[in-house]
């Protein structure tokens, strides 16, 4: 931290000097010309950049939004902002759960398959003239929760590696979704099912409301409760956590169950938005969620992370997808750009942490 202030000093001096050229400077002229004030513009630029570095990933996000706004007049419009939030809500809800899992030094590769399984199960209870809407929702979330619980139990009680357990579950849950539907999408859904993905509250689309709620609850859990502290403790040093009297098994089971349930919710939203549920859906969602969490500064080694960072990570990915589409950038180049942004974001974050 001494490092930081030492670096900031020259900039502060330059700022004091530049707007006051009239009174004779107390410094000898020779020295003044040597350390002379930079042109205003350059000084401001440098300061802005330094600020961005200081705030790492948040700075990168602001820079990205600013860049997109300049590039397209339609980017920063209410319609498009809602658009971005809608599109990020599914990945965002999963990523909140994934943040908890990764903070415990785990990983959950099964979320994409849980999305598909929950979606087809929920949708199958939403045919016209069937069950009330709440049944479909509870079934979807319940299936996700159940799969998450199995993940958690195997990881905590059997001591299996999270990567392997959830890799197996990723395959198995996908298989179950295909078995359940014989490989065909579930279609012909009742009109009321559209409410989850297409409805709105106070003018805000329901998926965005659910995303916001998930963020609020997730951040509260992680940063303001005993459970959250224990999540960090288990990820930072599981042995030390156990010696400190924490039931580490219960914490691990809980984070995987929460992530499963949230993936179930995401599956319901996804299927409701397109009014059909494909057993092949949600493929690759685990990687989007992991990318968002990592961009957000959560360490894959566990013990470090925040929901706020993850939200920004989700939004960075969402803004990239949306903005590059709007600018009609070739989809081949979009892939390159996305990869570069992920790397850049993580590098910025490292720099600000150093």
């Amino acid at each position, binding site marked *: 931290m001494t490092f930081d202030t030492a670096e900031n000093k020259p900039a502060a001096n330059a700022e004091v000097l530049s707007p006051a050229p009239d009174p004779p400077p107390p410094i000898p002229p020779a020295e003044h010309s040597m350390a002379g004030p930079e042109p205003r513009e350059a000084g401001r630029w440098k300061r802005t950049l330094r600020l961005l570095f200081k705030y790492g990933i948040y700075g990168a996000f602001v820079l990205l939004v600013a860049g997109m706004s300049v590039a397209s007049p339609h980017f920063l419009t209410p319609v498009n902002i809602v658009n971005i939030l809608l599109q990020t809500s599914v990945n965002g809800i999963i990523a909140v759960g994934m943040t908890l899992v990764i903070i415990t030094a785990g990983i959950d590769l099964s979320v994409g398959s849980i999305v598909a399984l929950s979606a087809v199960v929920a949708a199958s209870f939403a045919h016209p003239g069937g069950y009330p809407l709440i049944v479909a929702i509870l079934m979807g979330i319940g299936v996700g929760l159940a799969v998450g619980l199995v993940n958690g139990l195997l990881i905590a009680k059997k001591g299996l590696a999270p990567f392997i357990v959830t890799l197996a579950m990723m395959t198995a849950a996908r298989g179950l979704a295909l078995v359940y539907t014989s490989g065909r999408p579930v279609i012909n859904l009742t009109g009321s099912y559209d409410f989850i993905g297409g409805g709105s509250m106070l003018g805000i689309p329901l998926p965005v409301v659910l995303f916001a709620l998930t963020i609020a609850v997730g951040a509260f859990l992680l940063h303001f409760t005993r459970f959250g502290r224990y999540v960090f403790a288990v990820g930072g040093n599981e042995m030390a956590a156990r*010696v400190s009297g924490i039931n580490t098994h219960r914490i691990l089971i809980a984070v995987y169950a929460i992530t499963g349930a949230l993936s179930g919710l995401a599956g319901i939203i996804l299927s409701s938005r397109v009014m059909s549920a494909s057993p092949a859906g949600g493929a690759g969602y685990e990687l989007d969620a992991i990318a968002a969490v990592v961009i957000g500064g959560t360490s894959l080694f566990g013990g470090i992370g925040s929901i706020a960072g993850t939200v920004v990570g989700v939004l960075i990915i969402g803004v990239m997808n949306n903005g590059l589409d709007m600018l009609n950038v070739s989809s081949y180049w979009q892939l390159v750009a996305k990869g570069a942004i992920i790397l850049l974001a993580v590098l910025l974050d490292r720099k600000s942490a150093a």
Partner: protein
Amino acid sequence: MIMDRYVRNAHNGDGRRTIAPMNGNIPMTLGHRASVDYILRMQGICKSFSGVPVLRDVNLDVAAGEVHALMGENGAGKSTLMKILCGIHQKDDGAIYLNGQPVHIRSPKESLRHGISMIHQELNPVRAMTVAENIFLGREPCYRFTTIVNRHRQREQAAVLFEELGASLNPDARMSSLSVAQMQLVEIVKAVSCRASIIIMDEPTSAIAGREVEKLFAIIRNLKSRGISIIYISHRLEEIFRISDTITVLRDGRFIASRPVAELDGAAVVRMMVGREIRELFPKAQAAVGSISLEVNGLARRGKFRDISFRARCGEVLGFGGLMGAGRSEVMETLFGMYRADAGVISIHGRSVAIRSPSDAIRHGLALVTEDRQLTGLNLKASVKANMTLVSLKKFCLARHVLRLGEESRAVDAQLQSLAVKARDQNQIVSTLSGGNQQKIVLAKWLLTDPQIVILDEPTRGIDIGAKADFYHIIRTLARQGRTVILVSSEMPELLGLCDRIIILCQGRITAEFTRGSFDQEEIIRAAIGQRRES
């Protein structure tokens, strides 16, 4: 690096370590050894990290075939100086001479070529390879004109090297099957086989004990007789006085003095290291011993220890001595519910209790400061605050779950103050604290649970002497407050100076018990190595 810097800032801040009464001695000490042939001279070495000086004008002169002890508190600059010698860091200023020739050491490889080898504190061999393979890693003897490793010759050469050192080790043994002491031996043999003329040993005895230390010393004497110089870094004064010829002391990145061992005594060295006298390392006042708080009967765990029975009282400091591996830590960990006992009854305040997990132990008023704070004591990635309140978090919660951050913060500040922890603030990440301060955080974590029985397993290992003194005071204070303190320690002076009673374990059994007043060092050592039958 960060730690070094932090400690320095803290010292400058409180200002009490700026007195340097020893500076006047330097010209004299240099003059005294002027006629000696130096194999290594480091002169006027300066080094700073991002503007913070860590070494200021440091000298180190090592004669051929001597054991040269390098001493100083944590953060004094010892390891930075050695890293410069090893080519890991580059010096900012100063000169290095080897056999009178100026040299530039720009990389670890160059350092090795100049005949400098370092045995690190944390050994990191290729565990899946054999002893011989490790020794010749990267320079395996090959069949003529080929690159095929001649395993036979490799094995033979390794065996010869061990024999020359007067040590025995199977060259075909896997590294993963070796003890720390044996791994150290392999490192030493590797250094010798690289034709090292200077071997740096960083805290070589921090993880070995008893007979293994003796073996190490025998090997050091052997190396000495062959003209190899040893730079020996250690905190343990007794060892330094036994093995070394010359002592160089650094403090706060400055060279303080370099003198032959014969001219010094322990008090003088400590004075040089700390820059002040530690008059009362061990507080004398004893507490009034009260009723029995903990009673253990016939505690046993297969393969680890058996038939462990003892009582501890309120206000008492009960010491557990013995060699490494005698089972002391295992007894404490079992007592604390980290492992299941096979037999035995534990009673607390006269009532027998079942302790199946640490949370049971905590509920019954036990606290355990474990032996290895990095492995089981702390979450190094978390803040001072998060670590400190981890066990007692329920106390700082609304409805048992929601944190009351203000209350927590106040409690943490109070602990930081009462334990004199040197931390920037409570959000500082604990990995950036010095060892002594980290240990205080572990202790604070347990004190916040208001424990009746505090078990401390090697609480002062690897922390500097200033922090040690703080710890001793804290231990006595805990006893004075009527708590029971159980102190596991391998340092004799600590046991003798602090404890009301000492129980000695040897190979998983209690072999002796001593009460203050009848402490006898020789008897204690005999009990620890199993030469004394319980009478």
